[in-house]
């Protein structure tokens, strides 16, 4: 059996000008597992995902999917399904048109479009312009697009944004079934309760660096299994450290 992790990120680094947005970030996602990528706004989660998917150039380290960089996958659209930035939906197109275009781009059969629209609960709205959709409906279109190629890996950036309770339940079941079927999921979210429901492991990033990683069970044991307490404690500590580092360097500058 192939033991290569579905996703493997090692020593990832991204620098914008004089700012290091991501620094030495490492994690792996084995097949059949869901990894929650957590962190405050601007921590470097989305940048890490973009580097993993070949959308942003890597300044250091490696990001592999099934042992290869994303750009070297034979059929990227059939291997990885991704949701980023609410899916890049044109407001004038319909959901059906959007999915057909995505199928054509990935060289996929358009026969999965209608079943996926049904699965996402969009059949009746499928021929309406996307500009008439709510945020939650747009997320459903983006998720349906991610599933189009029947991928073995999902990379989802804030997929629960705007979903109603039924949509949240649908997403939760979708991710659990996906992982149960051997798929690997990298999920970024601020909804910690949802992450606690679906994730097996978590990585917490603060200010571009990994502040904590491991299985949810092990990491939250000290906090009675409460992910929110663990997360807030960890991010507050990192923030304090960063503030004191800043004060020290400013003082050094004064001297």
């Amino acid at each position, binding site marked *: 059996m192939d033991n290569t992790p579905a996703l493997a990120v090692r020593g990832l680094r991204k620098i914008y000008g004089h700012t290091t947005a991501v620094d030495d970030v490492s994690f792996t996602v084995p097949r059949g597992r869901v990894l929650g990528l957590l962190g405050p706004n601007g921590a470097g989660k989305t940048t890490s995902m973009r580097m993993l998917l070949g959308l942003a*150039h890597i300044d250091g380290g490696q990001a592999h999917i099934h042992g290869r960089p994303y*750009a070297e996958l034979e059929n*990227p659209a059939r291997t990885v399904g991704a949701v980023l*930035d609410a899916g*890049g*939906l044109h407001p004038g197109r319909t959901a059906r048109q959007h999915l057909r*275009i995505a199928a054509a*781009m990935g*060289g996929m059969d358009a026969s999965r479009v209608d079943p996926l629209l049904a699965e996402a609960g969009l059949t009746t709205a499928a021929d309406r312009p996307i500009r008439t959709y709510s945020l939650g409906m747009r997320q459903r279109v983006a998720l349906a697009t991610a599933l189009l190629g029947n991928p073995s890996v999902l990379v989802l950036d804030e997929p629960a944004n705007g979903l109603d309770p039924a949509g949240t339940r649908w997403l939760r079941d979708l991710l659990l079934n996906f992982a149960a079927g051997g798929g690997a999921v990298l999920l970024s979210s601020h909804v910690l309760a949802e992450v606690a429901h679906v994730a097996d492991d978590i990585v917490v990033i603060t200010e571009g660096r990994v502040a904590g990683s491991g299985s949810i069970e092990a990491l939250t044991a000290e906090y009675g299994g409460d992910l929110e307490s663990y997360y807030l404690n960890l991010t507050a500590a990192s923030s304090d450290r960063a503030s004191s580092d800043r004060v020290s360097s400013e003082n050094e500058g004064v001297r």
Partner: protein
Amino acid sequence: MFRAELLKLRTVTSTWVALAVGVIGLLVTQVLLVTLLPAMANGTILGDEPGLREELGAIDTGSQAFQYSALNLLGTGGSSGSIGIATIAVVALGILVGTTDYRHGGIVGTALARPRRTPILVGKVAATSATAAALAVVLAAISLLVLLLLVWTTPASLAVPIVDILSSVGRGILTVVLLALLGLGIGMLVRSQLAAFLTVGALLVGEPMLQGLAQLFTGSLPTWALFLPVSLAYVGMADAPSAVLSPAIALGALAAITAVVLTAATVTLRRRDL
């Protein structure tokens, strides 16, 4: 990617608006220039309006020069001093192909499907070329119909040989495709739709102004001023060579400029973070 890019084009209203503006713009321009103006100059319409004939001058609808101008697919009548509505619509078509993906974030999905990125631009070039060529065929049909209408409804007879008509139309189609690809390249380089339209607008308006200034200061139009995109397009479609350039050289130069812009767009697309 070709099929996907065609689907993208077909499913946005702005594409159809650009195509409609091109077709209606040429139709109105050609009907005005090829039928109404000669009729006014000849007194068929408005009769002997005082001063009108002198102002318009004699228009010989049976001359080769006039009939060649009727075959101009961009409705500029071979004049490099004006910018036809069809010219703007054709360049706008290319800009829309190049920028719509960026405007709504669709470039991310496109890059996920084609992570090596060069095929993205190849697909857009193919889709733009096909759509611009289809538009050019419609524009050619309009030009031919207006010319035939002129021949049928006036005493003038067809003065342009069929082979030359086909040659003129062929060069017109090539010019339309090249202008659309130039718009695509600029759109892919600039990325912002508004900025791309402003850039192209400045280029279209600035070119004749630059030529005018160059002529004013040097006394004659310098050779370099002929190698500007709109001038090259108009010389490429013209029936006779200008003093310096033949239509073939003009089209070759326009193709070279377009190739440089598209290559720059490919390089930046490959290097940029999305």
